[in-house]
């Protein structure tokens, strides 16, 4: 009986350890889940390759850009283009203006979010300032480009969508490498 007890206890402990691991595995799983369903309108985190196919001239989709700076972020940040009408499949470029008015150099990270969330699955960015953190010297200014195309598979009922960029201050205090700090997220986006 003692033997069968310890065998069963071992199995149950394995379940416990496994479920503890599963709790953490939910982090990359959630990311995959978001990629599939478009929860929270997360976009691709690394450059997409331009889809070299048919441009769907018959459809026009309006893409709207919103810029925000998070608390503690003194930068000026605005979209040069507020709204753009695009054909699915066609390559587009928009620019964003940033200026660092502080008297010290700073590093920023832009976090994108798209609504409605499903649209995020069809927004493909081949070049984006949000893929990396962006340093800027005191008083420096810059124009940051973003190139993208909309996948022609975009569901018929979506005629426009909104892309928001929030600029976070990731200077110093151990946070400049934050985007790479989450081992689960990076290991997954590398795949």
């Amino acid at each position, binding site marked *: 009986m003692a033997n069968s007890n310890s065998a069963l206890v071992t199995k149950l402990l394995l379940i416990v350890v496994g479920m503890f691991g599963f709790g953490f595995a939910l982090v990359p799983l959630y990311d995959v889940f978001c990629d599939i369903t478009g*929860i929270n309108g997360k976009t691709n985190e690394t450059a997409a390759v331009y889809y070299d196919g048919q441009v769907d001239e018959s459809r026009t989709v309006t893409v709207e850009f919103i810029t925000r700076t998070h608390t503690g972020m003194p930068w000026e940040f605005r979209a040069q283009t507020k709204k753009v009408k695009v054909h699915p499949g066609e390559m587009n470029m928009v620019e964003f203006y940033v200026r660092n008015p502080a008297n010290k150099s700073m590093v920023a990270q832009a976090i994108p979010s798209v609504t409605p969330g499903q649209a995020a699955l069809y927004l493909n960015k081949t070049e984006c300032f949000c893929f990396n953190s962006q340093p800027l010297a005191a008083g420096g200014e810059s124009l940051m480009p973003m190139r993208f195309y909309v996948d022609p598979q975009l569901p018929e009922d979506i005629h426009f969508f909104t892309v928001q960029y*929030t600029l976070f201050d990731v200077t110093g205090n151990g946070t400049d490498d934050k985007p790479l700090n989450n081992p689960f997220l990076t290991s997954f986006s590398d795949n």
Partner: protein
Amino acid sequence: MSKATEIISPAHGEAHAHDDHHEHHIPKGLMRWVLTTNHKDIGTLYLWFAFIMFLVGGAMAMVIRAELFQPGLQIVEPNFFNQMTTVHGLIMVFGAVMPAFTGLANWLVPMMIGAPDMALPRMNNWSFWILPFAFTILLASLFVEGGGPAFGWTFYAPLSTTYSGDSTALFVFSVHIMGISSIMGAINVIVTIFNMRAPGMTWMKMPLFVWTWLITAFLLIAVMPVLAGAVTMVLTDKFFGTSFFDAAGGGDPVMFQHIFWFFGHPEVYIMILPAFGIISQIIPTFSRKRLFGYASMVYATTSIALLSFIVWAHHMFTTGMPVAAEMFFMFATMLISVPTGVKVFNWVATMWRGSMTFEVPMLFALAFIVLFTIGGLSGLMLAITPVDFQYHDTYFVVAHFHYVLVTGAVFSIMAAVYYWIPKWTGRMFDITLAKWHFWCSLISVNVLFFPMHFVGLAGMPRRIPDYALQFADFNKWISLGGFAFGLSQLIFLAVMIKACRKQGEPVSDQVWEGAEGLEWEIPSPAPYHTFETPPVVK
């Protein structure tokens, strides 16, 4: 349990002689309780601990209701109010309801399956004795600078990470200890049920309380580690620079809610499945008729447990999910009402054409069926996504889960205690006082929680220390009901103290006329050691 089941157990006289032999070895005084590995002692410890926590958490509810008695801020600051709602929730869930069920499992599971003790008695001792430390830490956090946790028992990030006080570390530590305690308790229950059943106690002969606890124990070991993971992530996000839930670092605060509710929804069933077991023991006894649909009860419990893993996001409809996901979680949630309904119908069918009497445990059990069903039906309404946008985070939700947890889980625990305490002490409790306890509780609990439906529908959000004037009238009634319900529990305390002092008439071994099962075969009071020679169940 079938009526046809014949139980052969050692003759009573023999059992007594045997037990007397052991009584000499029970250490006296405090050390008896500190060192005990006896399932009955540990069950008693758990139950008293749960009761004390119930009173502490209840005192916090009194603070909340006193502040909400009328509009305006009178008694406490908003920050302290938030600490009260948070710690009230944590204490009631992890300190009162769960330990009480574990205490009942300790007392009853070995007696019901004909085992001499729990399978892992030393671990049993540990799993209890770390609990007081967990709650001391949690309560102590209220007194550190900046106060205790104030982010709700659901501790949504980033309120619990970036924006919380330093006492969050204490909160995380105490939740870890609670989790370890529950996991150890659950492992013990599973091993006991798997390995220590008396000969002939086959799976489908096990009393339903044992069945529901077995399933609960599996839920516990599946989801408590996920909770441990969630609090660990909160800890590292807050103190060690990770960004699981911080958008700036590639994390996502909504992910916290997914992880939390992946634990949280099965947790809800952890707090109600043992209650179903208790009610399924009590109703047949006082109807003097076998439980209707024993097998379907087992299947229903299992399917509720399985479904509980695929409905978590119904707590999060307003976070902005794709419509397909909203549909899925709505339908899956509605589906849970089918097996839950089967249970209620089975209980009613058990009563139908029985021969009922209404002793105190039966009164609580009947109140459970009606009031739990009300909570279940409001739960069904909450599952409907479009209307949930209106109900979500209002007092309608508060009403719903208090009907399920207070008049559900807590009433079932009280029913269980009244049902089995004569067996434990060998004496009948003070029936008059117990009836006072029942009727006062029944009336006040409805004055307390029913109007919450109204203020919730009318638009009062939960977790606010002050409210608009149109909610004032009902809130006054709710508070009065709350105070009355709080005071009613002091009657319960009196009944329990009297019972533990062994005041009252001695009872027979069977105690209740219609009671069946192994625990009613042994002498009253249950000797310190039972079933050292396993009974044979035919």
